[in-house]
Each structure stands twice: as structure tokens, then as C-alpha cells.
């Protein structure tokens, strides 16, 4: 009877309890909830990219701080993500660490900015400088990137590889003056009850 009670209906099933997701980052392992893009990936990638950007001569040796416009990231993975979050993190990191070495332009706020300038030109609101002078800055560089993925699913589990690629484009010459990437691979197996 004890043998009966100790029996398990799932005997003969490989890994009945499933295998926890393994976060593989070159030589590092950790435990995460899913195989998709998660906050720790975002922080790691954004930190790496912001450090890398600051080291290039175009930024480090610039006589005047170059102006940068952020362009949306192209998500080509199978994971829907908030695409702005990477660029926001990189911008915040650069603004806090670079201390004026780069200037970001708020192109996403252009509609509101133009409206305000027009109000100043019409005299509807006060202006601290001549509103008829064009002071909106043009971009020296565009910062953008892409997320590309490779996913596999077999009876042994799910595996997702994601390549995060970011690059800085010279707005005058279209030359890519900087590019860096980070890659991650995660794998996991769900409980047999879901297979």
C-alpha cells in the first residue's frame, strides 16, 4: 500500500517538474521567469551601450557636445516589448554619466514645442529671446537599434537567442560611426502538465 501511495502518475516522463529557465550570458548563469526580454537584460544592454558610446572619439573628443536624436528601435524578435525603454535607459545613463558630453534633442515633443514657439511668435505668451530666430537644433547623430531573435522549441524545451544591436549614424554623411551589440540566450522547459 505504501508503494501504491508513493507512486507517481508521471513516472516515465522526462523532467516532469520542468527545468527552470537558464539565463545564459556568455559565462554566466541565472534564473529568470521567462525566455523573453526582461528588465535585467534591458539594464545590462543599456549600460553596455552607454559606456561604449562615450568611448568613441566623435563623442569623447568633440569640441562642442554633439546633438543626438533617438530613433525607434526595430523589434524583430517574437517578443512584444516597449521599444522606447532601451533608448530611454541609454539616454538617461548618458545624461547622468556623460555630464554634458552629448545633447539629446526632444524630437518626440516637436508638436508641443512648435505650438509653444508659435504662441510666442503671436505674442500670446512671453518670450525670453526673439521667437522668430530659429533655435531648434538639428541632429549631428541618430541613435537607433534593432532586436533580432532566433527561437527554437522542441520536446527538450524552449530556447530564445536575442541579439541587441545599436548604432550611431552621422546625420550629415550617413556613416555609421559607432555600433555595438549584446547577445543573450535563454532556455527553459515548462512543467509536463503543460506539454
Amino acid at each position: 500500500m505504501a508503494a501504491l501511495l508513493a507512486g507517481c502518475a508521471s513516472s516515465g516522463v522526462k523532467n516532469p517538474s520542468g527545468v527552470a529557465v537558464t539565463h545564459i550570458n556568455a559565462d554566466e548563469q541565472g534564473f529568470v521567469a521567462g525566455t523573453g526580454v526582461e528588465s535585467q537584460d534591458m539594464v545590462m544592454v543599456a549600460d553596455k551601450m552607454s559606456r561604449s558610446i562615450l568611448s568613441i572619439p566623435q563623442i569623447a573628443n568633440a569640441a562642442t557636445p554633439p546633438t543626438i536624436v533617438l530613433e525607434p528601435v526595430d523589434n524583430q524578435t517574437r517578443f512584444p516589448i516597449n521599444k522606447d525603454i532601451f533608448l530611454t535607459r541609454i539616454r538617461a545613463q548618458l545624461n547622468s554619466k556623460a555630464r554634458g558630453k552629448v545633447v539629446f534633442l526632444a524630437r518626440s515633443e516637436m508638436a508641443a514645442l512648435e505650438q509653444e514657439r508659435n504662441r510666442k511668435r503671436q505674442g500670446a505668451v512671453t518670450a525670453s529671446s526673439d521667437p522668430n530666430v530659429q533655435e531648434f537644433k538639428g541632429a549631428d547623430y541618430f541613435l537607433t537599434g534593432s532586436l533580432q531573435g532566433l527561437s527554437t522549441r522542441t520536446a527538450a524545451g524552449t530556447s530564445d537567442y536575442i541579439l541587441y544591436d545599436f548604432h550611431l549614424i552621422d546625420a550629415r554623411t550617413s556613416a555609421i560611426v559607432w555600433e555595438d551589440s549584446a547577445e543573450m540566450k535563454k532556455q527553459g522547459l515548462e512543467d509536463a502538465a503543460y506539454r
Partner: protein
Amino acid sequence: MKSLWQPALLAVLLTLAGCATTPKREVVLTGNVMVDAPNAIAHGPPRDRVLWEYRLAAAAMRQGQFALAKQNLDDALLTLGGIYGNDPNAKKARSYFHAEAKKTFIGEPYERSMAYIYRGILYWMDGEPDNARACFRSAEFEDSDTEKHEYAGDWVLPEYLDGLATTKLHGDGSDAFKRAQAVARGVNLPPYHPEANGLFFVEFGPGPTKFATGRYGEELRFHTAPSPVASAELNVDALRIPIAPTDDVNFQATTRGGRVMDHILGNKAVFKSTTDTVGNVALVGGLATAAASRDRTTEEVGLGIALVGLVSKTISAATVPAADTRSWDNLPCYLSFASVPLPPGTHVATIQFLDPAGQVLPNLTKTITINITTTDRDKVVFVSDTSLTPQTL
């Protein structure tokens, strides 16, 4: 005798005590998913949360409540994306003494794919075709682990839309188009027209539901009803576009093949049957021995065997091999798609649903007023044969 019966009684009581249940979180259902789902999500068992979120999302999309659909799908997909590794409820579902339905519901692969397809439509509606494409890729991915390889990743529309989104994002969608065409059984898919900014997602017919067969209800089966709607027709401006089904959700449900869980449920059923038989033999044999015997020791042995039989019967009764038949029961049978160029301005679109004989089902006709303010962004229109009408987008 007294010394034998007291511990035996204690053992039986302890066994029965094991069957004691904690208070159930039951919700009273009205039959209206827009009422029942929020109630079940808030007050029902947490293991059913995703099921009700799926149902509410589908119903909300048909009512034009896309923000509500988004909110529920996002939460459901969060659970779906994080099921890896050890899960106490899933472990319970595998044990002899709990039903499969004890596990947190995430649905069978066709249900998971549909959740991603709906979310993809909503992302496209919000002007995020790359996130929509991510969802369509995940929809295919959920279907990639079928028992028979020929049915793996064979959704047509997600593949077709993957290519369309790529084309609209200035990429090369031709590979995805070829893959879609390869699995489109008898349907000639229209080539991509990136300038077509009016995207119509059309669904119709009743989708699959689940039931169980087998001696103990351990075999999961799918019920597919014939659809009264076989196709649709879109009329917008001067255009008249026939819409044939591209995906059959019933087909997707029934071609997945066996699950690992089916093997586990089969083992449970065998265990239940064996313990029942052992119980019968021991109970009858033990009682017969005790009754026939005039020797006190033999009588005690006989009663002991009968007690073992009783415990075995109790264990058999407590074994639950029943398959999980919780279904996303408001899914459609067919999915389809059409795209048309719509210049800025107001357009009135009429979608008629046709029976298998090609006759219009007038009570299902939907009218949608579409306001196009810019051609820089696609206007996504979602229409079901159960959609609210008229709608203004």
C-alpha cells in the same frame, strides 16, 4: 479484535481527512461573459484567471472595447510567458489525487496562439506593427511542438501578417509569404500591397470546445461544430472583396496530437483501475475468509485483508485522472484578412457573412464607419460575426 480495529479506524479517518477541502472560491455565472469574466477574475480561483482573461478579451474586442482586451491579454500573456520550471499547481495536476484542472490554465497551443494573434491585432491597431509581428511569431511558435511535424507552425494568417508587417517596415517579407502560402490549404493568398492602409481582420463561426472521454474522463477531445458562416464579403467605397477563411481554429485544435499530459492521465487511469480491482479482490476475499473461518486468527487475517481492500478502494476513489476540459469557449472557427487602400476621409464599410451556399446571413451584417486622418499609419478594423454593429473607428 478491539486492538486491530482502533488503529484501522484511525487510518480510515486520516485518509478521509485528507479529502477535506479548503473553502472553494466559486462565482455565480450569469452567462454574460462581460459580467462573469471580471467577477471570476476578481473572485474566482486564481488557476482560472487566464481562462477568463482570454474570454473577456475576445468578447471585449467584439464590443469594440479594445483597451479592455489589451489589458486582459497582457496579463494573460505574462502568465503564459512565465510558466517555465517548477509550478506547485502543475505538480498537483500531475499527482494521482488531483484533477488536471488544478493547474493554472494557460490553454492548449491553439488557445495560446489565438491569444497572441488577438494581441498582435491590437498592437497593429496602436501603430506598432513590429510588436504585432512579434505576437504573430509567438503565435506560430506556440504551435511548433506538435506530435506530427506536418502540423507544426501551420497557422497561415500569423505567417502572412509577419511578412506584411515586415514589408510595411521596409523589410523583405517574401520568405514569410512563401511559408504562409505553403501551409494555406487551397487558398491563394493575395500579394502584399504596402500602400493598403485599411487592414480588416475578420473572424466567424463557433470555435472548438473540449470534452473528455475514456472510462474516467482521462482522454481529452475537441468538439467542433459546423459553422453556419462559411465566408464573408467586404464592401467599402466601390470595392467588393470576397473574404475566404485562411485559418481554421478547429483544425488547429484537432491536429496538435498527443500531449505528455495524456500519458500522465493514462497512468492515473491505470492506477485508479488497478487499485479498484485490488480493493475488490481484497475486500471480497478478506470478508469471505473471515466469514467462513471459525478460527479467530484466520478471521483476523481475513478482516485485515478486507481492510487493505477498503483502503485500496478509497485510494482508487481519490484518484482523479480526469482531463482538463476548461475551454476558451468564445473563440471563432475561421480567421481571415483583407487589406484595402483608404484615402483620408470617412468610409463606411459593410461586412456580410455568407452561409456555405453563398447566401448572405442578413442578421449578421456589420456596418463600420472608418475615419482616416492620415495614410502614414494603418487603420486596423476587427470584425467578428458576433461584433457589435454599427461601430465607428
